[in-house]
C-alpha cells in the first residue's frame, strides 16, 4: 500500500494491567541498585553492542520496568557484558548484573526461555 510518506503509529499507551512485572521484580529483589537508574542513557552511549546495532540498554531497562518483556527477551542476549556501562553509570547501577539477572529470569520462566 502506498503510504505517501505517512505512517500510522501503533497505540503507545502503557497497559500495566496486561504487563508482566515478574522479570522486574526478580531483578529488583537481587540487585537493588536497579532502582537508582535515572535513565540518562550513558550506558547506551558507551555500549559496545550499541555501536554495532540498535541495542540500547536504557531502552531495555525501561521496558523491563514497564513489564513489556517481549522486546527485552529478543535483545538481551546481544549484550557482551563488557562492563563499560557499569563504569560510566553516574548512579552506580550494577548494569552488568542486571543483564545477567534478566537472562537468568528469562531462563527460569518457561514461557520466556531464550
Amino acid at each position, binding site marked *: 500500500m502506498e503510504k505517501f510518506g505517512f505512517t500510522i503509529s501503533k497505540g503507545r499507551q502503557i497497559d500495566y494491567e496486561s504487563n508482566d512485572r515478574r522479570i522486574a521484580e526478580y531483578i529488583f529483589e537481587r540487585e537493588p*541498585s536497579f532502582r537508582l537508574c535515572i535513565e540518562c542513557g550513558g550506558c547506551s552511549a558507551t555500549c559496545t553492542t550499541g555501536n554495532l546495532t540498535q541495542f540500547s540498554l536504557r531502552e531495555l531497562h525501561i521496558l523491563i520496568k514497564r513489564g513489556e518483556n517481549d522486546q527485552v527477551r529478543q535483545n538481551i542476549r*546481544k549484550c*557482551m557484558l563488557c*562492563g563499560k556501562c557499569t*563504569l560510566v553509570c553516574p548512579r552506580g547501577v*550494577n548494569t552488568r548484573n542486571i543483564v*545477567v539477572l534478566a537472562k537468568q529470569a528469562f531462563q527460569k520462566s*518457561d514461557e520466556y*526461555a531464550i
Partner: protein
Amino acid sequence: MQFDPFVIPFNIGLYFILIYSVVRSVIWFRDLSRPDKLRLQRGFFGTAFVQSLKEIFLESLIHRKILKTNFKLGYMHMSLAFGWFLLILFGTIEADIFGTKHLNAPYKAIFFRFFNPEHGGMGFEAVYGFFMDLILAFILSGLFLAVSKRFYSKVVGMRKTTRLKATDKIALISLWLIFPSRLLAESFTSGAHGNGSFLTGSLGSWLATFLPAQQMAYPFWWLYSLSLGTFFILLPITRYMHIPTELFLIFMRNSGIKTGDKSGTYSEVETHSCSSCGICIDACQLNFSVGITNIQSAYLMKAIRNNDDVSDIAHNCLMCGRCDLKCPVGIELSPIRMIQRRAGEPENDFRNIYKGYFRSRQSVALEKTNGSSAYDFLPENNPKKADVLFFAGCMTHLTPTIKNSMIKILEASGVNYNFIDEQGGVCCGRPLMLAGQDKEARELINYNSRMIWKSGAHTLVTSCPICYKVFKESYYLDVEVLHHTQFIKRMIDEGSIKMNFLHKKVVYHTPCDLGRGSGVYDEPKDVLKHVSRLEKSKFEDENSLCCGGSLGNMKISNQQKSKIARDAAAELTKGNPDILATACPLCKKTFSAVTETRVADISEIVAEAMMQPSVKKYILKQVNSIKELANI
C-alpha cells in the same frame, strides 16, 4: 594373644578408612581422562614420584609453606601432622623391638603401654620412652595452639578462622580428645606401675597420689580408642579428608595434571585437599576491605564438598587470584571457581550425610536455549593486511588517553600496524567467561579470531590485560600476543623509540590479570625504570592488590568496589609518588576516581617521555613540500 575389647572402635575405624581409601582411589583413577592416566603412569615411573615424596615430607608433614607465611600457624599444623606421624612411626618400631613378637597388629603399637605396662623401666627402654614422651609433648603444644585458635584466632596471628559445620565439629572434638586421652591413659598406667618418662611418668605418679591409677587408666584407654575410631569414620565427610587426599594431589600435580575447565577427578581431589587453614581468608580483599567473610575459597571448597548451592559464593569474587598464590596446598582455586560459575545453579538440592562419603558428580544444569546465535548481528569484517595488530579493547576505548598514547607509540616505532578496533570493535569474550557464559564467549572469540586470521599479522598487541589473558589462553591463534608493556619494552630494546628521562617518582600497581593472571611482572617495571624513578611498594608482584573494579565480581555494590579501590590506592600511594602507574585501563579508571595522586597507564608515561615525533614529522613534511615546490 594380647587383646582387649577397648581396641575394637579403633580397629573398626582404621579398617574402614583403609578400605575407603582404596575404593575411593580406584573410583578417582577410573574417572581420570586417558591422557591424565598416562601422565600418572609416566609420573609413577619417573622423577615425579621421587619429587612427590620430597614434597609430601616438606608440605604434608612439615608444612613448610604455612611456616613461611605464618610461623605459629605453621607450628600448629606441623606439630599435629609431623608429631602424629613420628608417634605412629616410632610407636610401631617400639612395638616391634620391645613387644612380645615382631610384626604386630596396628593396635598393638597404638596401645603399646596398655599391653606392656611394665615396659620402660631401665636403660635403652627408658631413653626410648623419653623420646616418645617428647613427641607427645610436641603434639600437645600444637594442640594447645589449635584449641586456643578456635576461641581466639589472633593467638596464631590470624584475623579470621574458618567456621565449621556440625560433623566437622564432632570430628574436631574427637581429634582434640585423641592426644589428651592418650596422655592420661598412659599416665595412669605408668602411675600404677611406677614407670614412664618425664611427661607420662611424672603426671602419672602425681595423679596416683590421690586417684586409684589402676582403675582410672582403663576408661581413658577406651576414650582414646573411641576418639580415634570416631575420627577415622568421620574423616571422609569432613575437612580432615585433606590428610589422605593431599598426598594424591601432590603426586598428580607433579605428574603434570592440570585443573582444566571441566570438573573431574583432579578438581575433586583439589577440593578435598583443602584443610580450611584460612590463609585465603586473610589474603582476600573482600574480607579486609569490605568485611565479606563467607565467600572465600576455603568456604567455596567446603560448600562444594557438602554439595551445597555454591552459585552465590562462586560469583562473589574479584577473581584477583591472590588466594591462588597464597594457598599452602597449591590448589588452583580460581579455575575451580570458574568451573562452578560455568555449572550454573544445581537442579537438585537433595543431600544427606551418607552421600558425603561418595559425592555424586556435579550435575550441570541443561541450558534452555534454542541454539541460535546470540551475536548474529556482528558485521563481516575485512581488516587490511598488517604485520602488527593493535587491539585496544573495550576498556581502552573508555580511556582515550591510553588509546592515543598507544597510537603515538605505534606511529613512532615505525611498524606496519593496523588498529583493528578503531571504530569500537567487539568484546574479547573474557567478561562473558567470568560470568560463566562460555557458549556466548566462544562466539565472540570465533569472530575475533576470524578477523585476526584475515589480517595475516604475526603480532597482536593489546592494551588491556583482560583481553591479553583471554587471547593467550582461550584463543587458538597463530600470532604472538603481547601486552602493550611488552611491546614497548621490545621497542625500547630494539631502539625503535627514544625517550627522555622523566624526573618523577612512580609507583607501579600490577594489574591482576596481567601479573598473577598471566605472569607478566618484569616488562612493565623495566619500562618504568627506563623513563622514571620506580619506587617499591609493600604490595609488589604476586602480592599486588586488586583495584576493585574487577569484572569478575557482579555481586558487590558500587560502594563496596570503591572502598576496595580506596584502600588499595591508599596502600600504594603511601610513599607519596608523583604518579601511580598501572598497565590496565580498568585499574586506571577505578583508581583515578578515588585518589588525589595522578594515575597513568604506562603507555601514557612513555608517550609523555617520548621525543616529539610529531615535531619531527612536521619538519619533514615541510622539507618535502619545499622539495616538491623546488622540483616544479
